[in-house]
């Protein structure tokens, strides 16, 4: 182990350690721009030059490994001259426009210039100017400020997994950009803003909104997927202005995805509801809380008196906190309704009894990085859990193998062996893999399948991850049963990739019709979400959810809600609720409330409000408490959130981090084959920026709905032009068509989560695609 000395302090470090790392462990600060512990070493900014004894020239600390007996001076005359020289060069072309730069106040170039530069510059010539690039709605560029540290370039290559930015030109003409003007596509692109040590890349939605020192920082928790990324919510007054990652190496490392970073922009949506609303003779009017609560209570009581509590159902978003989930199910069950659910996107519930206590990854996120063989079952974590995906990417870069089974080829940002099911034959693919694994397959079976089987058999205890999208399949139950068999045959273990930020909490808190809080079996199970639409329900309580786009069969959900006698919607946004609700109660949105989530690992994390709620909005737990109290239910006597949290902990008990991935399977009643022989199988899922009410309203993230189809399929159907009509047994929509070779033959991809596509009904159903009938155009001469 080399012994070295930095600024007179001796330290012994592992061979291969750099001077930068050794100094860091001694607490000695060496200034730098291009160095980043999570990125490769480029050593191109030269800011970290230090004076090494016996070396003829100053050496870059970030790229110089220590050698035994090395004596380093970080503040000698030679080191200081080097630092001053480098800064003078870096500032030659920097515009020094700090007063109008968003980076001002949190800018390493500013800070290091203050700390290390010679106040006088010799430079009197013209500065270079670099044209700005438009790289999409998320990142603002001011490329004249760029000091070419290439952190953003290396981030794209090494972390994002798709290299979109590069350094074009040479010498003085070198500039960072995309070359061909286009929007950056990576779902992690916002992190480049944090990495940029100057104001060249800044947040576009945040541009000119505030100075960094004015912002209040509140530790937050991202509510947009099951990874549970830690965030730093930055606000000014009552407005959330920015969401940045809060480093937590065990969860999100130093990153967050663009969904978590920019979804806050949806808080300003036009249909944000800040005052209780009542429908009076078909007209919406604002009401006081007292009036609205009276209306809600009497509406519920009357509905129950007329039809019985068995005709009342409750649906809650799995973005709700544990406290809200616990009170929500207590409210419904207290009123006598067993119909409580959060799984609006699921269509096959036959395996409910076999489901685990909660969808648990059954391992630490960090350990995913070291998995040698992972099988993803209908999981596309790049869109569904971007930072969990990053762990898998790291495992692949270190030689791990990821195999994915899915209905279509996915655009992973690392090499993945992909098995794609024939149109609608997803279950058959799992069955075929099982027979390969058991050795019963005929030799003529497809080669890739045999390769995957031998990979799984060769692996020691491979990890099998069930994706959130698998549950959306009409034969999900049978597929889950096959996966259990598959795991046994392959000698592997199973983990679940949970969908929402608090899916785990929703299961634990008993927001499923067949389990009570703590995972205890409900004595009288209710109906699952999708069955409610056809069950002649007369009353609904909704919390934080918009079934018209959140439910698998959006149109059916809307029809059922409109038909119901009484609908109470506790929500942040009134847009959809106004179509069917009778009472709308405004609740706290992201960053306005406090509570706790259980992430995919089973990690219990809490968050607190960053800003005050707008208008008359109230935290959902308080609304539920008042409703429970008003309905004279027991167990609603809370004054503080901490009391609810304690009640939750009491009800759930000490839940295990690793849970058996399956309970005993019930006999699965066969379901009709989803596909008929003619027509196309409609694939589709909630795309990354359509998954919940808040992110749907985030304008900078919005992506238009498009149908996708294999070019050969489009040719076979003689589809020309760019707009098509898609019809299923329940509705007809028209969308622009994009050709994509990743979509298998016999299928068409139509994303869910859009108002435009809700009419089409469930995914994996048969549909027909025809040319859109365009309005008649007068024939030209």
């Amino acid at each position: 182990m080399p012994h070295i000395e930095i600024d007179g302090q001796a330290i012994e470090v592992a061979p291969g350690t750099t001077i930068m790392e050794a100094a860091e462990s001694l607490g000695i600060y060496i200034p730098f721009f291009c160095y980043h512990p999570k990125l490769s070493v480029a050593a191109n900014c030269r800011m970290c030059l230090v004076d090494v004894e016996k070396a003829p020239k100053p050496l870059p600390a970030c790229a110089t490994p220590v050698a035994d007996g090395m004596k380093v001076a970080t503040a000698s005359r030679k080191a200081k001259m080097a630092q001053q020289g480098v800064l003078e060069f870096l500032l030659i072309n920097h515009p020094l426009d700090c007063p109008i730069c968003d980076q001002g106040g949190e800018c390493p170039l500013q800070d290091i210039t203050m700390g290390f530069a010679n106040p006088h510059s010799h430079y009197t010539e013209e500065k270079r100017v670099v044209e700005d690039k438009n790289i999409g709605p998320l990142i603002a560029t001011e490329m004249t400020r760029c000091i070419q540290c290439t952190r953003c370039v290396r981030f794209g290559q090494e972390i994002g997994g798709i290299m979109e930015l590069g350094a074009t030109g040479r010498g003085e003409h070198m500039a960072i950009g995309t070359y061909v003007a286009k929007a950056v596509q990576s779902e992690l692109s916002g992190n480049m803003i944090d990495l940029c040590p100057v104001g060249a890349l800044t947040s576009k939605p945040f541009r000119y909104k505030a100075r960094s020192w004015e912002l209040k920082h509140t530790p937050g928790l991202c509510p947009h997927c099951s990874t549970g990324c830690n965030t730093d919510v930055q606000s000014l007054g009552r407005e959330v202005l920015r969401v940045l990652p809060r480093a937590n190496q065990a969860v999100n490392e130093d990153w967050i995805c663009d969904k978590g970073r920019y979804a806050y922009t949806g808080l300003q949506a036009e249909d944000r509801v800040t005052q209780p609303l009542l429908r009076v003779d078909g007209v919406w009017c604002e009401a006081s809380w007292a009036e609205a609560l009276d209306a809600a209570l009497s509406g519920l009581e009357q509905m129950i008196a007329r039809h019985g509590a068995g005709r009342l159902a409750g649906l809650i978003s799995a973005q709700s906190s544990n406290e809200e989930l616990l009170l929500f199910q207590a409210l419904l069950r207290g009123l006598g309704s067993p119909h409580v659910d959060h799984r609006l996107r699921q269509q096959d519930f036959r395996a409910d009894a076999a489901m685990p206590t909660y969808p648990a990854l059954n391992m630490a996120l960090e350990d995913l990085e070291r998995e040698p063989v992972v099988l993803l079952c209908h999981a596309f974590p790049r869109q569904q859990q971007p930072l969990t995906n990053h762990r898998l990417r790291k495992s692949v870069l270190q030689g791990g193998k990821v195999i994915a089974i899915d209905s279509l080829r996915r655009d992973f940002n690392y090499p993945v062996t992909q098995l794609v099911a024939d149109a609608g034959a997803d279950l058959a693919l799992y069955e075929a893999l099982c027979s390969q694994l058991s050795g019963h397959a005929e030799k003529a079976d497809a080669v890739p399948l045999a390769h995957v089987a031998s990979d799984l058999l060769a692996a020691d205890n491979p990890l099998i991850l069930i994706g959130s999208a698998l549950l959306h399949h009409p034969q999900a139950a049978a597929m889950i049963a096959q996966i259990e068999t598959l795991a046994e045959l392959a000698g592997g273990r199973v983990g679940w990739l949970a969908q929402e930020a608090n899916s785990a909490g929703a299961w634990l808190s008993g927001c499923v019709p067949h389990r009570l809080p703590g995972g205890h079996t409900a004595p009288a199970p209710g109906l699952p979400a999708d069955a409610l639409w056809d069950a002649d329900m007369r009353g609904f309580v909704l919390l934080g959810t918009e079934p018209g786009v959140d439910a698998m069969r959006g149109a059916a959900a809307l029809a059922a809600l409109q038909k119901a006698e009484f609908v109470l919607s506790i929500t942040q946004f009134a847009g959809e609720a106004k179509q069917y609700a009778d009472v709308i109660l405004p609740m706290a949105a992201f960053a306005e409330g406090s509570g706790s989530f259980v992430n995919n690992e089973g990690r219990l994390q809490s968050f607190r409000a960053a800003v005050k709620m707008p208008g008359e909005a109230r935290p959902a737990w308080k609304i539920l408490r008042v409703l429970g109290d008003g309905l004279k239910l027991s167990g609603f006597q809370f004054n503080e959130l901490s009391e609810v949290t304690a009640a939750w902990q009491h009800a759930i008990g000490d839940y295990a981090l690793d849970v058996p991935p399956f309970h005993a399977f019930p006999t699965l009643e066969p379901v009709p084959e989803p596909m008929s022989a003619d027509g196309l199988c409609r694939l589709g899922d909630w795309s990354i920026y359509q998954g919940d009410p808040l992110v749907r309203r985030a304008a900078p993230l919005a992506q238009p709905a498009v149908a996708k189809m294999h070019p050969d399929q489009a040719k076979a159907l003689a589809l020309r032009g760019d707009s098509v009509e898609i019809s299923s047994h329940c509705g007809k929509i028209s969308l622009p068509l994009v050709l994509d070779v990743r979509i298998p033959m016999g299928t068409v991809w139509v994303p869910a989560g859009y108002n435009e596509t809700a009419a089409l009904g469930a995914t994996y159903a048969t549909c027909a695609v025809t040319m859109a009938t365009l309005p008649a155009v007068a024939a030209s001469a």
Partner: protein
Amino acid sequence: MLSEKSLAEIARERAKYPADQARSALLAALRIAQEEQGYLSDAVMEYVADLLGIPAIQVYEVATFYSMYDLQPVGRHKLCVCGSVSCFLNGSDAILQHLSERLGVGLGETTADGLFTLQEVECLGACKDAPMLQVGDHYYGNLTPESLDALLAELRGGADDVR
């Protein structure tokens, strides 16, 4: 987008490097593409990226770094005048000035007849003949206004290779 012959040549270059280092074949692939197409359009750069299985931006980086790659259509003859130290001290400015006047185009521009493109390039390693320029695969040294006029006349006369 590229001919069979070019594709075969690129494949031969590609085979020289390990399987996971496709980027190494990029310089050669771009040269072959430019020889066939005359210049590197965005489309051909993207095509080469796909061919080698590397991100398009890596192709742009390389193509914009080296002055020998042309990203815009060029004339039939590219007059690459060296402007580095030895040539500069021996009057490369006057050479450029003379060519610019004779051709009626500025640096980086192409004559209306599509015959000539005028470029200034960095040292081509022929300092003993300074001032010098390169046309096609050949160097022409010890340039004077008279020798330039003669060269232009010959090139205009249809010669590809003037010695």
